[in-house]
């Protein structure tokens, strides 16, 4: 019996994962399409605002939200946040207002610098470090104009067409 256990366990795990992949449309989640992130309606605001922001032509969500230093940390983080998000969402614990964690912010900042190294070298790479996030000034680069009403972008499902 114990001889078969590992094989059975693996078989079961493969089956479970397959089922999970089927019901959750997980194959899509292995990719990088922003529409996948927006699958969860709770990501709608971010999607809408990214869609209307300057970076839409040049970035997808994962360009900012996943680490790009090497392929391992990319997939490790993808799995970690992926499971976290799915768990929180499926168990109905989605907070009213979703906020980037400090951990996430570190990842994003590294990505800004990754693409814009040449631009910011003079101002961030000094001996005394950098203690602010780029989006403290560039408040609209990622998710559109902060501070402006997000509501007109969200009304389609809430309100009949208004003449």
């Amino acid at each position, binding site marked *: 019996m114990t001889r078969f256990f590992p094989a059975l366990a693996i078989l079961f795990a493969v089956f479970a994962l397959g089922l999970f992949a089927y019901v959750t449309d997980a194959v899509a989640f292995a990719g990088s399409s922003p529409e996948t992130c927006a699958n969860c309606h709770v990501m709608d605001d971010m999607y809408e605002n990214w869609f209307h922001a300057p970076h839409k032509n040049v970035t997808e969500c994962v360009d900012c939200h996943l680490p790009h230093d090497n392929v391992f940390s990319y997939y490790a983080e993808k799995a970690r946040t992926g499971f976290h998000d799915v768990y929180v969402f*499926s168990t109905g614990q989605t907070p*009213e207002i979703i906020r980037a964690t400090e951990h996430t912010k570190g990842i994003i900042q590294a990505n800004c610098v990754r693409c814009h190294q040449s631009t910011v070298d003079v101002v961030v790479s000094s001996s005394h470090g950098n203690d602010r996030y780029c989006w403290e000034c560039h408040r609209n680069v990622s998710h559109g104009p902060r501070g402006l*009403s997000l*509501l007109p972008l969200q009304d389609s499902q*809430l309100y009949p067409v*208004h003449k």
Partner: protein
Amino acid sequence: FVNNQPVQQRAIQPLTEIAAMEPNSSKWGVNFPNQYASFLKTRDNNIATTYGGSNDFSHLEKDPRQKILFTGMPFSKDYNEDRGHEWALTDVQKTKRLNLDKENPKRTPGTCYSCKSANMPGLWAEMGLEGVGKTFFGDLTPRVNSSIGCANCHEPGTMRLIVTNPALEEALQAQGKDWKTFTRQEMRTVVCANCHVEYYFAGESKYLTFPWEKGTKVEEMWEYYTEIGFKDWEYPDTKTPMLKAQHPEYEMYTAGSTHYNAGVACADCHMPYVREGAAKYSSHNIHSPMLNPERSCGQCHTDTEAVVRRVNLIQEQTYKTKIATEDAIIDAINAIKAAAANPKSDAALLEEARLLHRQAQFYWDYVSAENSMGFHNPEYALKILAEATNLARQAQMKAAQAANDPSLLQTGTYYQSGPSGQ
């Protein structure tokens, strides 16, 4: 989980049809259970914030100066903090400000129901503003059975936001504006102006009127009232023809405030979207945003704590400045009283003192009766209070000149003369 969600409706599918101006909100609630359920919660809120909130404490007890400032008129008898929309009908019926003696010429008119009930759109359609004004409050009572409700803001069927109060429609027209051309975002503010505005009862028919012909800034309303020679009451002993300002939230907010300038509407802060499962709707549990700043402010401000700290500072500065203004007005009142009691006083100077007193108090009240303790437009509120204090001090000086009596220049009289201050 993506596939096991209910299919999203892209538009509202009405279950039952609602009649125009239907006063019974529970009927609308069949179609819109989320909005209705959140609306009903305005009954249960009872939480205070530093300066506002939903428990109906007495302003007169919290700040006894106001008792002096409103001497001789109903607000000195009973003036409580506002609370949720579901309480409007109860509160107007129980306030001691009412005069329920039908034979008294000062009896309360039906106009007082204007902003308290979902029955009003129907009654206005039937009787007009004039008819409502001519009817005694007590006589209208049997026909008013719902507090504020869906019919005060929405057109059934389309659920569009609409102007339901004819006084608002007329006031906008007087400025050459037609609300039917307003954008949806504008309506998210204008719909509150059905009620959260300064008003007066014009003429014998107690015709509900918003004093906006010259504009909605404090100077413009002051000019309007001066021109038509209106007074709400005469201050006893000083004989000043006084004005009472009431809840000018709309006027204060739209006077160039930062948020108004940036296109933010009342509903953005007071009716933030909330989530029920994956569905989102506007919270109809309208109350102080300080009770849930994450939701109310967090959609636009990522650092919610910083903006809440700012609200506290703004309100504290406004409150302290407002109290200084009240002290100055009370000093002026005491001086004018003495000057008016002195038969040798110069009549022309005394009249000037009264006019300054009238203006100082109206300016002060525009800030004091406004319900955000300055937050809706902090700079404007403080600028107005600076002017009001200056006017009040000048009123006192004119009174001393009128009586030719420097002993009327006492300051801090509120503190010197015991709790009643008089």
